[in-house]
């Protein structure tokens, strides 16, 4: 005769079906974890994409609207002084912006910012070479267009619009 089994004791089958303790603490398997983390990362990066596109448009609008302000008119000097000295220095549009006006050998009147586009040294006019020179690193600019023609500068000098009224010269704007 077989011994009577205790019905209240847990059977072997119940132990098999019960999930282990660690399973309740870590209920998500690796596959599910990778699936969700990649999906969430795509969402996060797309949100970053929205922000970057918005920042790009803010930059574009800033470039369009921040430069539309009118420049003041400012006296540069007399035509006689420019003709005798070939170049005169002035400040425009503010007193912290040095500029240079030049009368070329062909008689053209041009004016540029005096700040070198390389490392912001002050450019000067060389009458012998007929170009604007930066003494810091031997950079040179065309006196006709302000474009870099030698040395380290790669960007042209901002041009200053000049108007001649009688014997006086006036700066009226900056062309960047």
């Amino acid at each position, binding site marked *: 005769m077989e011994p009577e089994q205790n019905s209240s004791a847990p059977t072997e089958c119940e132990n098999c079906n019960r999930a282990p303790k660690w399973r309740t603490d870590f209920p998500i398997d690796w596959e599910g974890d990778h699936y969700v983390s990649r999906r969430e990362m*795509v969402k996060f*990066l797309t949100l970053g*994409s929205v922000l970057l596109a918005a920042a*790009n*448009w803010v*930059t574009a609008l800033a470039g369009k609207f921040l430069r539309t302000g009118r420049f003041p008119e400012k006296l540069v000097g007399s035509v006689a002084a420019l003709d005798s000295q070939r170049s005169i220095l002035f400040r425009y549009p503010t007193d912290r912006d040095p500029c240079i006006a030049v009368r070329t050998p062909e008689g053209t009147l041009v004016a540029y910012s005096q700040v070198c586009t390389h490392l912001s040294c002050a450019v000067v006019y060389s009458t012998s070479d007929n170009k604007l020179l930066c003494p810091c690193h031997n950079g040179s600019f065309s006196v006709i267009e302000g474009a870099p023609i030698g040395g380290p500068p790669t*960007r042209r000098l901002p041009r200053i619009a000049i108007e001649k009224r009688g014997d006086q010269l006036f700066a009226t704007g900056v062309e960047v």
Partner: protein
Amino acid sequence: MSIRSQGTTLFTAILILVATTVVVQLWLLTVSMEALLAHETKTLIPAAVGSTVLLFINAGLLRYVFRFDHEVQRGPQE
């Protein structure tokens, strides 16, 4: 191969694509900022348009991810 593990592989590929376009957008923003500071305003609008095109590509990929995830949530249909 379960549909979820297929989704993991698919999402990994999409993630690489989206990350690449975001890096390109970051480069466009850097170029735009540099152009703005150099007063070169001609490149700003094209850069912004390019960044928006990349955003639409990313949005399309994210929409695909959502639709695929919706299919996974519903489970396999007979």
